């Protein structure tokens, strides 16, 4: 038993993933501590999960580079020419599972750090997003494995490091916007009234899984032959085309409205509905809405019978609060939501004289 433990420890200590672990953890910490990354999560788990997964920006390149290095090491050691009983893929798996573990550890630490800042009162991490993160990570590692197989580690390792980083960082700065939804790196989504669209999650996952499938095809033969590479290229191209088809309708954000059944409602004059993340603010919001309703009723103005944070549940009294809003901010939001802030559609811009009254009316309602 001791011998076996010694073997595991001896083997493990040489893996580049072990050496890269402190680097990855430090990078994850610095990334999440950087300005704005975890600033406006509003206690909303889908948003928090996406921010946690966005740490792939620093995790995936290191993992891809480690995979390239490890497979390059096997290549230099002649493992792929060795007429062994075990397939080359098994040798690759033995060398790269610590790399995968490194990535998963990085993601877990990222999620834990985000969770401490999230102060979520409802829900749990979005498993769809976590699954997408795992698939994207696997895709980057798969690319590292293939490059490590065909290139010298001295070339493959930096290529993976830079290429993986560029793939995650560059697409959000180019047009069309939909390209950004292929990478799995998203720090904009989502407000509490929306969630990431299904294809926003599926597209990067499909690409990641196709890269894994392509890498398996390449390793299906002992020697790098053209046919498996062509087959792998076809699989990856098909995956990219499917993913592009899925995200083509998206603009800047790949979001869809959040299901109304999640709303938490209370009060009766009017009925007030908030997202579960704002449940603690519901009594304040009900009180503010009732005050506004009473004040306006005294002037003969009828307010809607329902006020809601959802834009899709049919009410015309739509407000927005956040988990960190003060009581006065909530009151302002409730009252201000009744006032049309834009002119009627028939008026030319800047000619709606009623617009000048908006701040005064809002101040009166708040008072």
């Amino acid at each position: 038993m001791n011998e076996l433990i010694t073997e595991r420890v001896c083997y493990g200590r040489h893996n580049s993933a072990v050496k890269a672990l402190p680097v990855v953890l430090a990078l994850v910490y610095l990334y999440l501590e950087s300005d704005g990354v975890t600033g406006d999560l509003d206690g909303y788990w889908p948003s928090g999960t996406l921010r946690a997964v966005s740490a792939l920006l620093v995790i995936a390149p290191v993992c891809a580079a480690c995979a390239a290095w490890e497979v390059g090491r096997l290549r230099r050691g002649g493992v792929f020419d060795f007429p062994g009983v075990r397939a080359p893929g098994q040798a690759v798996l033995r060398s790269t599972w610590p790399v995968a573990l490194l990535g998963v550890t990085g993601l877990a630490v990222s999620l834990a750090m985000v969770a401490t800042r999230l102060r979520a009162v409802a829900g749990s991490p979005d498993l769809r997003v976590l699954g997408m993160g795992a698939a994207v990570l696997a895709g980057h590692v798969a690319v590292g494995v293939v490059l490590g197989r065909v290139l010298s580690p001295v070339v493959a390792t930096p290529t993976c490091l830079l290429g993986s980083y560029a793939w995650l960082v560059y697409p959000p700065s180019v047009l069309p916007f939909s390209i950004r939804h292929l990478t799995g790196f998203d720090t904009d989504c989502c407000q509490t009234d929306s969630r990431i669209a299904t294809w926003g999650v599926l597209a990067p996952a499909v690409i990641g899984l196709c890269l894994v499938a392509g890498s398996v095809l390449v390793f299906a033969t002992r020697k790098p032959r053209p046919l498996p590479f062509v087959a792998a290229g076809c699989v990856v191209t098909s995956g990219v085309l499917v993913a592009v088809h899925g995200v083509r309708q998206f603009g800047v954000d790949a979001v869809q409205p959040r299901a109304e059944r999640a709303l938490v409602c209370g009060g009766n004059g009017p009925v007030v509905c908030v997202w579960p993340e704002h449940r603690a603010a519901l009594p304040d919001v009900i009180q503010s809405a009732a005050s506004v309703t009473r004040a306006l009723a005294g002037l003969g103005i009828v307010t809607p019978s329902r006020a809601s944070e959802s834009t899709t549940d049919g009410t015309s009294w739509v407000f927005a609060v956040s988990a960190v809003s003060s009581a006065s901010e909530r009151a302002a939001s409730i009252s201000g939501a009744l006032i049309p802030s834009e002119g009627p559609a028939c008026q030319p811009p800047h000619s709606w004289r009623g617009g000048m009254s908006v701040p005064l009316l809002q101040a009166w309602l708040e008072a």
Partner: protein
Amino acid sequence: MSLRFDRVSYRYRREPLVFNEFSLKSSPGVTVLLGPNGAGKTTLMRLAAAALYPASGTVSFDGDSSTSRSARARYRRRVGWLPQQIGALPAFSTREQVAYAGWLKGLGRSVAWDSAKRALARVDLAQHLDRPVTQLSGGQLRRVGVAQVIVHDAQMILMDEPTAGLDPAQRSGFRCLIGELQETAQLLISTHQTEDLADICNRVLILNAGRVCWDGSTGDFLAQADASGSTSARAEASYKTLLDENAS
């Protein structure tokens, strides 16, 4: 229990045939494979090790064919191969490298780890178990290669130029090791150095241009030349004589 080549043909891409309908059957003990450069010795070794597959014909060991998907794993498990170039896995210790080779040959990790220690002791590297394999000398690395061949208790051992890079003392130790190994396995040794192996082998094959041009016992081989003196001198003379006869 023997290694058989049955009507094997093989060619490298866009090259003429190295073997055409080549047949051979191994025999117990140690067989030495001699031949000039380009005769096909290394290709034969690689075909026998299942590192290459024949274009036609079969290579089999005790009924297990190297080309059959179902039997290939068994075949490879039973055949060990020492190539000319030993790949050193960067950052691995000597023991890790040998254990890794055992694992690739199908041993469990713990079994391979234990077997590696024993195999390295047999090749006189017990004191270098934890030394990085990349820091070993050429001769030591060759002995690591031999340890990789014996770590999984192969029944057919193929050695391609096993004594290249070994000093005289190491060659002597290697001859002792061959003596030990032939008790449990058949050996096919490809070499240029007739003086090393004439003492320990019991069959000699001379390969030229992809054909066996001479096949016989060591005694018959040594009797081919009218030379006297040491066994090595007689072996060298016999080899030259047979090659000349073949050329003419």
